[in-house]
């Protein structure tokens, strides 16, 4: 079969992805500064989380605002398995991912009967219910949260995903997570699912006339998106060593997870990465230089910059570096949501 533009583009994406992975693998090595290393880890983690959201929100076009719930469920499941049953987080994070995906299916079951803005609003409410349940659920620590113990008997360990002084391994954990999320998105783009989901986003009526089953398509996208987000939550929990509803399940997190994807370019492979690389450092810098005064100037400037980007580049920042942008209309809708 003759080579098409699609197969050529996909090969280039894989090469660029591998090169980027290599750069990110060595990036923190010369950096001794703990603050900067932390910034890089969080940026990489959010690149992965935004990519996970992008699978449902970008490719399938379902603007979910309940991803904090899947993130939190992943964090809680792996942490509870560790503290109650002494199961290593390396296994626990897959259980967290499974539960995150299951939760996304439970939310999707009723919410996908709604579409557009109504769907988005319903997910906000569901996310808030989840947050309140965990806040008042004593068995999972309630508002006090759970402290993740350092298991002394095993010491620093990849199996237990615990590293006392040197936080560099967490960078590789986050990088592995982001790479998997990227690879999943890449595989989806080239498969039946990717095409069908984008059709569902663009025009459900036309999609149905081409034998596309809408509801199962949305559910599949939600399950994958929720599962990846749950795994991200589990890794984050091990990294920070303490979780409570206000740190892993708060409503604003459901905005922070999609934000890099929305500003970088929804429904694109590179959008979430570019968005995270710009947004996360930006939010940290405004906070460290302007925050702390209690006046909220940092958040005003951060918010203002987001508005400027959304107005100037509705199709996403990734379009600046020549990434083909698929969804100009969708990007504007998503930015407005």
């Amino acid at each position, binding site marked *: 079969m003759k080579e*098409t*533009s*699609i197969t050529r583009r996909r090969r280039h994406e894989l090469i660029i992805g591998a090169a980027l992975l290599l750069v990110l693998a060595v990036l923190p090595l010369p950096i001794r500064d703990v603050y900067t290393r932390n910034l890089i880890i969080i940026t990489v983690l959010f690149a992965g989380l935004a990519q996970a959201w992008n699978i449902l929100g970008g490719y399938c076009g379902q603007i979910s605002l309940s991803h904090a719930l899947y993130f939190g469920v992943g964090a809680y499941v792996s942490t509870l398995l560790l503290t109650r049953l002494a199961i290593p987080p390396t296994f626990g994070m897959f259980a967290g991912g499974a539960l995150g995906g299951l939760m996304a299916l439970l939310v999707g079951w009723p919410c996908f009967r709604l579409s557009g803005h109504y769907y988005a609003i319903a997910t906000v409410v569901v996310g808030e219910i989840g947050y309140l349940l965990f806040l008042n659920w004593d068995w999972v620590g309630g508002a006090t949260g759970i402290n993740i113990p350092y298991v002394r008997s095993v010491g620093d360990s990849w199996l237990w995903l615990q590293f006392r002084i040197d936080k560099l391994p967490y960078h590789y954990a986050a990088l592995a997570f982001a790479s998997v999320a990227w690879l999943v998105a890449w595989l989806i783009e080239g498969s039946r699912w990717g095409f069908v989901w*984008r059709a569902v*986003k663009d025009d459900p009526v036309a999609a149905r*006339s081409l034998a596309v089953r809408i509801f199962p398509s949305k559910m599949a996208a939600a399950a994958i998106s929720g599962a990846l987000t749950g795994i991200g939550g589990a890794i984050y929990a091990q990294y920070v060593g303490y979780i409570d509803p206000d740190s892993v399940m708060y409503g604003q997190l459901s905005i922070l997870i999609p934000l890099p994807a929305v500003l970088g370019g929804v429904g694109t492979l590179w959008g979430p990465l570019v968005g995270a690389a710009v947004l996360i450092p930006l939010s940290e810098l405004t906070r460290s230089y302007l925050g702390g005064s209690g006046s909220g100037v940092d958040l005003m400037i951060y918010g203002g910059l987001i508005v400027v980007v959304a107005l100037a580049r509705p199709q996403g920042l990734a379009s600046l570096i020549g990434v083909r942008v698929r969804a100009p209309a*969708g990007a504007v809708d998503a930015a407005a949501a």
Partner: protein
Amino acid sequence: MPPLLEVDRVSKSFGGVAANVDISFDVHEGEILGLIGPNGAGKTSLFNSVSGEVTPDAGEIRLAGQRVSGLRPEQCSLLGIARTFQVVRSFDSMTVLENVMVGAYARLSRTRPAMARALETLEFTGLAARADTLAHSLTPAEKRRLEVARALATKPRLLLLDEMLTGLTPVEAQSGVQLIRDVLARGITVIMVEHVMEVLLPLVHRAVVLDLGRVLTIGAPTEVVHNPDVIRAYLGDRYAAA
């Protein structure tokens, strides 16, 4: 062998407005049937019933003897009914090739064969040169062609064309007619709704005329245009006698 499509006493109303009343006709394999009638005659409603968009209130629709009325659009598509839309519905964020691949995936689960079929369909419909263009930047005529290509990629037995030639320039309409002839030559049965009578009548084998939701007459194009009822429906009572 039963006819490919049997429309058997189909009625459908929307909130008290009768869109289709007791409509019956058959379509035979390899045939091209025209569905004509003034605005509001119920042509698109009937298309929606056949393609699964809506369920008839009464009556039955059968494809090759199998009941399809009441099935969902995605099931109708799998059984071999494909359609285009009166108001064009392209997947605007996707390229022309990607649009047609969505259709190809209806029967193919792997990407390589789906892409091969999509490319072959683009070749057939004369859109190959536009494969990498985003659908939303196509001309209206190309968008209609894209809808046909997308529908053909599902390998249908029956193709429903809803005003595919409306709003096109005479030259574009002529090449649209040629495309329809090519589709027929492939053994695909076609039902087309059209306002442009002078384009439609030489093309179709038979025409069904609808008026106010009812079948006015069914027959060869020449019979149909000389039917007094048809003239009355289109031109009014004064011309019927002439």
